[in-house]
């Protein structure tokens, strides 16, 4: 380093401003710490789907849902497991954020961030990184339980792993953006669970999580097809259930092209809703 540069640096104090990317990683890290230290979130977001899987799995046992004699046979538990993985992704993205962000808004955390030069996108990137890590943990736990207890076969081709990856990632992005956008609906932290939980439950009942989708009334199928969860479940069935089971789907196939299209549309729509609906301060604070 030449003497001239040193002189310049002394004249103008070196500005050690962290880059946006490193801020986003730090933001994700602090969000993750906050989450794993909060027992309620851990239980409701990560353990609840596992508990549901165990309970429903035990109830359904090995009811076979493929036509008699067809090989390979598919049990209701296996069908249900794919739905629970999709629900786990929705829980970490949608329910988690739509419930915790209003609480943080109530507690003045968002307003304090707003008063700093942190770029707005860093806050959202932090949430998304945190949610991605949690969703990964959630999916691994659910897969482990499903493989151990319900004869779920892990994907045996690269193609299926690839489908698994893009369905999960697109679904997670859509759910996360909707969760952030929906955080504007609950006016107070206390109202969060009351407005979010029914929506999650209705989607689970109508999207083929608790019941076979093709057994549902037509209007219910049409309703669920408007939202991401149905398509996430369907995409995951294509990964974990046999090719031949596609014949049982409403359309007679897993419709992967349409799955990608609907989930991508929800990502875009979710982003727009985020930009419109997100609030840093409570109504009372103006």
């Amino acid at each position: 380093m030449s003497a001239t540069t040193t002189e310049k640096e002394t004249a103008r104090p070196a500005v050690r401003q962290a880059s946006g990317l490193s801020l986003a990683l730090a933001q994700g890290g602090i969000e993750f710490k906050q989450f794993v230290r909060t027992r309620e979130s851990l239980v409701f977001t990560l353990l609840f789907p596992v508990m549901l899987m165990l309970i429903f799995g035990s109830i359904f046992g090995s009811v076979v849902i493929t036509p008699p004699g067809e090989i390979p046979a598919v049990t209701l538990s296996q069908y249900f497991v794919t739905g629970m993985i999709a629900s786990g992704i929705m829980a970490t993205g949608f329910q988690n954020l739509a419930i915790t962000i209003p609480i943080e808004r109530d507690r003045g955390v968002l307003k304090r961030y707003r008063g700093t030069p942190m770029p707005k996108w860093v806050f959202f990137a932090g949430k998304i990184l945190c949610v991605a890590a949690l969703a990964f943990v959630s999916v691994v736990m659910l897969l482990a339980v499903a493989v151990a207890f319900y004869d779920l076969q892990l994907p045996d081709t690269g193609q299926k792993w690839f489908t698994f990856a893009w369905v999960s990632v697109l679904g997670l992005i859509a759910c996360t953006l909707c969760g952030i956008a929906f955080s504007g609906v609950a006016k107070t932290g206390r109202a969060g669970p009351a407005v979010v939980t029914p929506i999650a439950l209705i989607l689970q009942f109508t999207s083929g999580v608790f019941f076979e989708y093709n057994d549902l009334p037509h209007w219910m199928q049409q309703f669920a097809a408007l939202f991401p969860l149905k398509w996430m479940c369907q995409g995951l069935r294509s990964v974990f259930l046999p090719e031949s089971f596609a014949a049982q789907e409403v359309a007679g196939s897993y419709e992967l092209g349409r799955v990608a299209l609907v989930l991508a549309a929800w990502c875009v729509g979710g982003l727009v809703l985020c930009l419109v609906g997100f609030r840093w301060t409570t109504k009372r604070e103006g």
Partner: protein
Amino acid sequence: MPGVTHEELAISVSGLRKSYADNVAVAGVDLAVPPGEVFALLGPNGAGKTTTVEILEGFRARDAGTVSVLGVDPARADRDWRRRVGIVLQGTGEFDELKVHEVVRHFARFYPNPADPDEVIERVGLSEKANSRTHTLSGGQKRRLDVALGIVNQPEVLFLDEPTTGFDPAARREFWELIRQLSHTGTTILLTTHYLDEAEALADRVGVIARGTMIAVSTPAELGGRHLATATVSWREGGGQRTEETDRPTEVVQRLAASFGGEVPELTVTRPTLEDVYLKMIGENGQEPA
């Protein structure tokens, strides 16, 4: 501010107005704070203090008037401006499961030249709690964490909205010392408070807001003509308390000393406190003191 131009002021406000629905919160506030001054904004709850301060912090939009903080309109606050401004909001921030040092360190990251986070924690008196989760802090300790977040960027202008709520008397004194240090290094400070002793101890000037307007601006010593007010001399004589209102208390005391031939029993000489003057002003303005 004779001799100080608009551009040189750290904070400059004129004709500021803000209404919520049909409730007028700020009805024409003017304010001029030169760099390095500590200015205290006094007034009852609902007088418009927080609305005014939050407009200056860039959190609220105004209906009318011009506002400039460090030469920038806070309504168009950019990241550069945020780097130079420190904010301690009213009410306490709750960071739950995060530890004190984690929160301060994290906020320091947002700034180009932050103070050393450990030093900031030390300065607000939280060193012993640096490793504690924030939900275990007392109300006063949480408030100190807020102050730490407000000063971690070494701001040029610092807004403090009722900063010492929940402090015990010793903590309040420590906080005053911290504010004096910041003021010595040239930080401009706008403070709102309900504690008149705090305003008197810290502020170069005080402004009293009532019903959305600034009804007086002065030094604490001269507010409401306090320095011109008559003194009250009080003493004990013949088994009873005697008092005398006077413009010349020294003469009265000399006369008493001569007549008692030495010590005057229970002698006090008092002038109206800042609180007396303030309460009188607020009362005359038809607002309940809060």
